[in-house]
């Protein structure tokens, strides 16, 4: 692979690093922040399962994202990815609600506008519908799970000390599921735009073929692992102690429900199984993990009678649907123009 190819991949690696540092931290935030789970354990589980999820099931959501606009030149992929990352960074700094998923979608639409390729309206509608259904699904799952968990705990009458032990294990399992789902669903945001212009070739080792796309996903997974190792502890402590004050048991419900949402929108196996029995399947597209998590927290708020429901959270979600893609598309369009006309790079074929 040429050196240029590697340089162009750096924006994707940065996105991967950011995924590990922020989104993975959301999974284990409460568990580590409340010291139910040690950071080292959380970091190892996150890194391993994000990579596994990305390599095994990452293709489905990436394909869904690819349908929106197949960025077909490496400098274009680099620019699109960088603009999405920049949008996330800038909006986070400005204190605005932001989602990587919505940023990458906006950036791709920006590429479509610039390159003149038509934006597949059907794919765009499919993706945008999931922005609404993702949080609603998260709220529904956590709502139901809250009652189920409460019923089971009342039935079992576990001693507080015993409950503590089971909760730790449950948090680890839900965390592993969360990390796997994150890798499976959101790795598309990281490396999805590089799939068409992938600089990797298929490798055959011991009779197994390791496709270029899988190599791309693995590198994304490793970048996420690096993000977990280098930066996520700080974020976990913030999530655990400041942002959402959840008890360890409710944290388990939120993590599991968020992971389930991401998994539903990423699993090709599940989609095939649903189609085979004649049920409508979930579209395989990247959904926002943070919005699914906020949806899940709202679900718990509703289950508790809706007294402490923070309506600002709902407003933030809606604002994110509009603001993030608009900003990302604008920045992407301008950056592609500069890349093409100032740096003389071919940003589309």
């Amino acid at each position: 692979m040429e050196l240029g190819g590697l340089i162009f991949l750096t924006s994707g690696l940065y996105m991967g690093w950011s995924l590990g540092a922020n989104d993975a931290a959301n999974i284990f935030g409460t568990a580590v922040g409340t010291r139910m789970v040690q950071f080292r354990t959380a970091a190892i589980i996150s890194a391993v399962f994000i990579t596994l999820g990305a390599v095994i099931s990452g293709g489905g959501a990436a394909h869904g994202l690819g349908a929106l606009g197949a960025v077909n030149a490496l400098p274009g992929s680099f620019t699109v990815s960088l603009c999405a990352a920049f949008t996330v960074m800038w909006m986070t700094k400005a204190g605005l609600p932001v989602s990587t998923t919505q940023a990458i979608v906006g950036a791709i639409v920006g590429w479509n506008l610039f390159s003149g390729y038509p934006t597949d309206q059907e794919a765009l509608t499919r993706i945008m519908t999931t922005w609404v259904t993702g949080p609603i699904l998260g709220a529904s799952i956590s709502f139901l799970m809250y009652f189920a968990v409460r019923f089971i705990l009342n039935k079992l009458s576990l001693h507080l000390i015993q409950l503590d032990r089971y909760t730790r294990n449950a948090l680890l399992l839900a965390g592993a599921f969360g990390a796997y789902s994150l890798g499976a669903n959101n790795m598309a945001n990281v490396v999805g735009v590089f799939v068409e212009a992938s600089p990797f070739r298929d490798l055959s080792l011991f009779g197994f073929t390791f496709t270029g796309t899988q190599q791309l996903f693995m590198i994304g997974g490793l970048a996420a692992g690096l993000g977990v190792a280098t930066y996520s502890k700080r974020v976990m402590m913030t999530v655990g102690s400041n942002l959402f004050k959840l008890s360890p048991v409710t944290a388990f419900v939120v993590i599991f429900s968020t992971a389930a949402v991401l998994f539903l929108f990423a699993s090709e196996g599940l989609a095939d199984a649903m189609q085979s029995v004649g049920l409508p399947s979930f579209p395989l597209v990247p959904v926002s993990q943070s919005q699914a998590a906020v949806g899940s927290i709202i679900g718990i708020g509703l289950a508790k009678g809706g007294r402490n429901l923070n309506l600002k959270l709902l407003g933030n979600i809606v604002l994110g649907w509009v603001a993030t893609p608009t900003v990302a598309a604008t920045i992407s369009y301008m950056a592609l123009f500069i890349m093409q006309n100032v740096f003389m790079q071919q940003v589309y074929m």
Partner: protein
Amino acid sequence: MLINTGEVMAKKEETKKNGRDGIGRVFRSRTKALEMEIDQYLSYIDQSALLLGEALKQYFAGDTQRFEEKSAEVDEAERKADELRRNITHRIYSEMLIPDSRGDVLGLIETTDNVADVAKKVASHFGIEKPEIYPFLKEDFEELVDTSIKAAQELTLAVRAFFRELYRVSEHLDKVHFWEHQADQIEDRLKRKAFESPEIKEFSKRVHMRYFAERISLLADEAEGVAERLSISVIKRSI
């Protein structure tokens, strides 16, 4: 009338014995051992109150020797509770257990210990000061002891429920408040009688009666204090 504690104590001894046998079997699990220590600790708190009732029953009956024996048992129950409390605190910290509710649990364990402390002090003060209980006040004193012990017992039930059956805590807490209120009323009645009756000639003896009525009632007051704390912890623990 004082509650008959003989049967209750026998049951407790049996539970304790089973518990000790049980500990050997389940010691493989550190957390299980801690659960048993907490259960045992609450049993000692319970016992200290019940034994105080037994001791005072003997005191009111004029059997000094039996009173001293029971009083020594109150001391022993309080000492064992103290020992277990230290173990539990150490274990929770050193084994990094229940990080989320550690503060509440330790606070609860600490304050519950006050009940045993009060029981020990009341027995000790009766032993040292040997107040003369006037016959017309005897029944009130017995009722006050009985009611205060009921408050303490309901408290230990509430604390047990906090650890295992959260949804049952409030029904026990309601009873703690009920018995504490009853104890207050009896205490008030007793003090009025002591100060209004011509049977007590010396002012110092009236004050002595008031003092002991207040000391016994303190058992219920302490129970209520812990109950207040517990009701907050319940809200925090409910998922």
